[in-house]
């Protein structure tokens, strides 16, 4: 998808860096990188995965300011010069002349020392170089870097590396997508997914499943994607972004398989859960959601199209909705032709073709509600059916619509007209109860999900007691025990 923006919340500012350098406003990138490396170190030593995720977030915030010399200098600091990783990575980073001297002078305060030999640092270097190469559009080198990192990852099995590993996998797939060689890596991705499942690496499993689905959907292999998705193990989502992606791909698969209700739910949920910065992703979700709602026979409200920042992208879909709402086949055909290039780019063209029969149904429904009796020739004229025998076609279309339950009427063949049945009082049927039930179920579901999503600050129950506190506590317990023993004695 061309608009798949990196959905990372770069809202967490590099707080660590900002706090420590009030006097020097322009901290060099290298200093930031060193800070990040120290965070990773601390995280790996205390086995806290959260710190590593934070380090990754800080890196993404730095992305735009990375320059070749910073990367080269960081590599020199972080990796021991004799390791093969260093040799490989420095070869990939282009050399820049001059300005080598500025680096060392820019960081007077807070000398950060980095321990060599931690695998997390090594993998982090791979990640950094990969991001840098992709941003500078050096795709071939990026591919070599990615393949080397995947080979290195196969030998590691540590939970703390998982976060970095999953990022590496996504960039690996991204770089292949940019150079149109996605089909080649399918085997590798499948093997990696197997490995992640064996290691119980849930974040990796999630990421790889999404990457595989994206791979299949890129080539329109919907049935293979569905087979994989139905057999892969499912569990609670670890990362909101991955969950949104999963819902989007699921929605697309369900749409193609004509299960519009499930598709609508998934797509709308994906659009809701996505962070507001991921505009491209939300636009795509909304496009598909609009088409699915049209295929279900309901018209999306105008506010959907007027959302901030999406108005221009959704204009073709707005005109399409208009044509379907009015029930006018001519208008529908002209809109479909006018925007056919947009629809082909979005790969929604086949779905639009399916909409034709919805247009007819909506038109027919409007006619049936407004007329109690109307001749078939008039129906054919209103629907603007172009065929050799419009009346006969209109008759069969109406018959099929009646059979499918779209309209409530009977045809009188001898006189050639359609008689609509009385609508009756809807409140005396079960309709209100059914509508009520769906709304109640939705609210209850949302309540349950909100409660489940409550998070308590982790490690609040694992506070290590200091020696004094422990002494105090033991003393208190002794007193309490003595007190209870005395009470017992008193009773006798």
């Amino acid at each position, binding site marked *: 998808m061309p608009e798949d923006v990196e959905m990372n919340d770069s809202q967490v500012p590099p707080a660590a860096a900002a706090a420590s350098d009030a006097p020097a406003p322009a901290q060099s990138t290298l200093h930031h990188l060193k800070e990040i490396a120290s965070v990773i170190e601390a995280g790996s030593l205390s086995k806290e995965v959260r710190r590593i995720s934070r380090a990754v977030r800080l890196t993404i915030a730095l992305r735009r300011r990375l320059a070749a010399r910073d990367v080269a200098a960081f590599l020199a600091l972080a990796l021991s010069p004799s390791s093969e990783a260093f040799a490989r990575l420095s070869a990939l980073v282009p050399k820049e002349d001059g300005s080598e001297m500025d680096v060392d002078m820019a960081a007077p305060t807070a000398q950060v020392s980095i321990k060599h030999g931690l695998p997390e640092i090594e993998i982090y270097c791979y990640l950094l170089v990969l991001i840098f190469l992709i941003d500078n559009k050096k795709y071939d080198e990026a591919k070599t870097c990615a393949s080397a990192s995947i080979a290195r990852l196969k030998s590691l099995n540590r939970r703390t590396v998982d976060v970095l590993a999953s990022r590496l996998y996504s960039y690996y797939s991204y770089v292949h997508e940019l150079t149109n060689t996605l089909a080649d890596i399918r085997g590798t991705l499948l093997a990696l997914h197997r490995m992640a499942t064996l290691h119980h690496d849930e974040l990796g499993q999630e990421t790889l499943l999404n990457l595989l689905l994206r791979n299949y959907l890129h080539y329109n292999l919907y049935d293979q994607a569905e087979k994989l998705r139905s057999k892969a193990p499912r569990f609670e989502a670890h990362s909101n972004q991955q969950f949104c992606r999963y819902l989007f791909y699921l929605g697309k698969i369900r749409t193609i398989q004509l299960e519009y209700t499930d598709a609508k739910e998934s797509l709308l949920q994906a659009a809701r859960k996505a962070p507001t910065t991921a505009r491209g992703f939300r636009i795509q979700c909304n496009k598909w959601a609009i088409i699915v709602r049209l295929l279900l026979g309901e018209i999306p409200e105008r506010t959907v199209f007027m959302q901030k920042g999406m108005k221009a992208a959704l204009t073709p879909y707005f005109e399409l909705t208009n044509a379907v709402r009015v029930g006018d086949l001519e208008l529908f055909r002209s809109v479909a032709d006018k925007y056919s290039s947009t629809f*082909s780019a979005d790969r929604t063209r086949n779905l639009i073709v399916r909409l034709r029969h919805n247009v007819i149904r909506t038109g027919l429904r409007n006619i049936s509600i407004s007329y109690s009796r109307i001749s078939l020739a008039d129906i054919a004229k209103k629907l603007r059916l172009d065929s050799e025998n419009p009346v006969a076609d209109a008759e069969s279309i109406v018959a099929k619509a009646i059979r499918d339950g779209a309209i409530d009427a009977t045809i009188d063949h001898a006189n050639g007209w359609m008689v609509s049945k009385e609508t009756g009082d809807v409140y005396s049927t079960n309709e209100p109860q059914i509508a009520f039930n769906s709304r109640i179920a939705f609210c209850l579901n949302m309540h349950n999900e909100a409660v489940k999503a409550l998070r308590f600050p982790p490690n609040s129950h694992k506070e290590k007691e200091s020696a004094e506190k422990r002494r105090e506590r033991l003393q208190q317990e002794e007193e309490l025990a003595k007190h209870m023993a005395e009470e017992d004695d008193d009773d006798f």
Partner: protein
Amino acid sequence: MDSGLEEATQKLAWLSFACARDDLESGVALLAELKVLLTRLHSLPPLEKTPNAVEELKIARTIYENAVILSLKIKDDEAFGRNLCQLKEFYINTWLVFARSPYEYQFLGLNLLRLLPENRISEFHTELEHLPLEALNHPCIKYAVELEQSFMEGTYKQLANFCQAVPNETYVYLMDRIAESVRDEIVDCSVEAYDYLPVSVAKKMLMFTSYREFFEYISEEQPEWEIKNCSIHFHMAKPKSHMDLSSFKLIKQALSYAQELEQIV
């Protein structure tokens, strides 16, 4: 194995000859031999690259194409489905290696049509997604797509025209099946939409050619239709009871609300 390749080429020539002559038994026997030969060719499945890979893949593809046509002629549905699936794999995976077969779209169209009478519409659309954009302009594929659209819309008169205008003679065999399913659809729709129909009109709508066939059909398939004064009454008035409360459903709903309220998540 060059000798295996030559033998296969020879037998393939005999097979296509037999197909053209409608010589079905020898065709089936030859096909069995050819399939055994295929297992001896080294580049299928594509685990290793042999120098003969291209010719072997081409031969395998042509073998399966002929297999499909043969199974159509002997009206073996399962074999037809199986051979088409295998042929499809060749089309999907070898388009990088050599040029498309000239019959590719014809066979893909056959695949699409096969799914229609069995009402496997979701598979139909999934298959449609596989096709590249220019495929939709090819007459065979366009035929299948328009047929499905008419099915969905309900313009059954157009469907009758379609049945006449097949783009390829191999499609003729599938047309009977499609015509049958169309007829079933029309019957369903007419039963709901009309209270009664004159016999002549009904016969024309259901595409029967003679009254005798029509009456046979009615007596076999639709015993509840009544024929009175040259018109068919589809069903005697079955008053729908509006006031059934579906109490079971309401009880279930109320119980689920109570359960949710008391539940500790």
